[in-house]
């Protein structure tokens, strides 16, 4: 085992973002106690800027040190410091910062330190999920993220829908975690190892094989499937997304999902080599069912958050294509997943930000009530259009290349049928994305003279997401090549 070689004080640098986030949580809670309510709106701005700072610190201080820490199992084998960790952690920190920015005007939560502390804890947990290399750390990180998100989903105490969303998320989430835990305990039992990278060897040399191991892995995959809302474990998604405070919906749909994909990738690469065909076929079927169900049901939705919820189920289906492609294509599938998740993080937060601002001004989450948005607030309509085009996969938005890389990886891996089904799905999806654009630009409303108020931090968030989506759409290939190099390094 190679995880004793690095001095532990040095290896603390590998969890620098998590340490700083812990400090941030304490600072927020202290300021929350000291400041009067009128000043506490600043807490959101402080948290968001601090998370961007942590992201910068990570990129400046931790990335160059990779020579020493790179690809090492650190802190007793609990985490692995590699490119996958870094990329996903960066996405998650960005998502956390943007979530803070778009929460400042949230009634009932935007002025509460506890809310931002919980967002920071959820970010911390999601970051650890993308680094976890040991079953113990996998479970703790998963639960740190989930438990804080249960609270955030039900945070608006007077709001019946928020409370219901919190309870539903909690009951389904706890059930899925318990299923995953039982799978993890069986994996430990069959291999005698808790480290992900030693389990495969343990299973290979162990006397127990075949069906019991398959059952154990299946239980773990059920737990992960719930987190990424893959069909048939998606049924919680629409209700939770609709009822939760909109910034939290955005966070759940990107950070929690990205972290779960990071975990899934690591798990598949390290633990699954011996079970290839079964898993690849199972994942391919799950991918097809997930994207088809998400897209078809999204067609009928009248509520913008609910539509984006089904859209996010469909997006998880697309991303699974990349996971399937890893079996044969390795680096390309991995890079496609990384690129897709990066563009999806920016895109979806942008879409939810506009949805939040419009529903706060109109008092309604119905898609029909976005009518005339292009005349009320042209900038908001433009930001939403960029986000929807990206989700739909139309150039020049980043979503086009995201889908292109995924489908390309599938074809190269020999899954032509999967790519074809995905293309048909993307065409179906265009209908409901373009419908929203049509409502914003063509339909008229009586309130066209009143622009929708946009707070300063909301403006920052929309500028970051919109420019990010367009940037990733224009310079897609350098970013992809970088992800590809990273992806190939990870396949050992």
């Amino acid at each position, binding site marked *: 085992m190679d995880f004793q070689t690095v001095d532990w004080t040095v290896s603390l640098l590998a969890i620098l973002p998590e340490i700083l986030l812990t400090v941030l949580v304490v600072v927020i809670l202290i300021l929350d106690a000291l400041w009067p309510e009128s000043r506490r709106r600043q807490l959101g701005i402080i948290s968001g800027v601090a998370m961007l700072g942590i992201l910068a610190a990570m990129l400046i201080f931790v990335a160059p040190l990779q020579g020493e820490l790179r690809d090492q199992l650190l802190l007793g084998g609990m985490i692995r410091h590699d490119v996958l960790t870094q990329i996903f952690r960066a996405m998650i920190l960005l998502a956390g910062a943007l979530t803070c920015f778009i929460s400042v005007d949230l009634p009932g939560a935007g002025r509460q330190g506890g809310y931002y502390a919980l967002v920071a804890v959820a970010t911390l947990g999601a970051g650890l999920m993308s680094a976890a290399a040991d079953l113990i750390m996998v479970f*703790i990180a998963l639960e740190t993220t989930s438990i804080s998100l249960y609270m955030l989903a039900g945070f608006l105490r007077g709001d019946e*829908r928020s409370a219901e969303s919190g*309870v539903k998320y909690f009951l389904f989430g706890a059930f899925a975690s*318990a299923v995953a835990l039982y799978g993890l305990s069986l994996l430990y039992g069959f291999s005698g190892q808790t480290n992900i990278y030693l389990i495969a060897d343990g299973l290979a040399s162990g006397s127990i094989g075949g069906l019991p191991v398959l059952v154990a892995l299946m239980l773990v995959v059920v737990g992960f499937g719930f987190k990424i809302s893959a069909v048939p474990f998606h049924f919680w998604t629409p209700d939770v997304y609709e009822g939760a405070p909109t910034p939290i919906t955005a966070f759940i749909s990107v950070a929690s999902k990205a972290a779960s994909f990071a975990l899934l990738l690591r798990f598949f690469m390290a633990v699954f080599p011996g079970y290839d065909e079964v898993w690849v076929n199972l994942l391919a079927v799950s991918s097809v069912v997930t994207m088809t169900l998400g897209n078809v049901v999204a067609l009928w939705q009248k509520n913008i958050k609910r539509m984006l919820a089904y859209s996010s189920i469909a997006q998880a289906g697309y991303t699974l294509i990349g996971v399937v492609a890893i079996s044969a294509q390795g680096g390309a599938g991995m890079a496609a997943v990384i690129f897709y998740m990066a563009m999806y993080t920016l895109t979806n937060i942008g879409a939810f930000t506009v949805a939040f601002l419009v529903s706060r001004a109109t008092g309604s989450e119905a898609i029909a009530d976005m009518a005339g948005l292009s005349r009320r607030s042209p900038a908001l309509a433009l930001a939403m259009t960029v986000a929807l085009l990206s989700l739909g996969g139309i150039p020049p938005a980043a979503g086009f290349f995201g889908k292109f890389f995924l489908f390309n990886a599938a074809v190269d891996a020999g899954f032509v049928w999967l790519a074809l089904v995905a293309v048909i799905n993307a065409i179906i999806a265009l209908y409901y994305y373009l419908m929203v654009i049509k409502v914003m630009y063509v339909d008229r409303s009586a309130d066209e003279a009143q622009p929708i108020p946009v707070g300063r931090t909301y403006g920052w968030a929309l500028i970051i997401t919109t420019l990010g989506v367009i940037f990733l759409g224009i310079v897609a290939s350098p970013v992809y090549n970088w992800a590809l190099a990273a992806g190939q390094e990870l396949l050992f």
Partner: protein
Amino acid sequence: MQPTVFVPTDLYVMLSAVLFVMGVLGVLIRRNAILVFMSVELMLNAGNLALVAFARQWGLANGQVFVFFVMTVAAAEVAVGLALIVAIFRTKRSIDIDDLHEMKG
């Protein structure tokens, strides 16, 4: 001190499987949010039992350590879960999960 009767590990694992299945059935059949939650706890404890049994089998401590963390996490989950259930009871005067249908579509 060695125990006089050594219970084989597979019996423990079978018991844990029975507990786990009972928990799953409880989640699927029960309609009361607190009973559903108790069934989830039963599933977590099934996992714990399997972990300690395997830890003894392998003669390694990491399974036991895992159980401590699971127990801690479960305690945090109880606190949050019960708070959420209280919150839903305040708004709805019911904790029947069939009454949770504010959102449809």
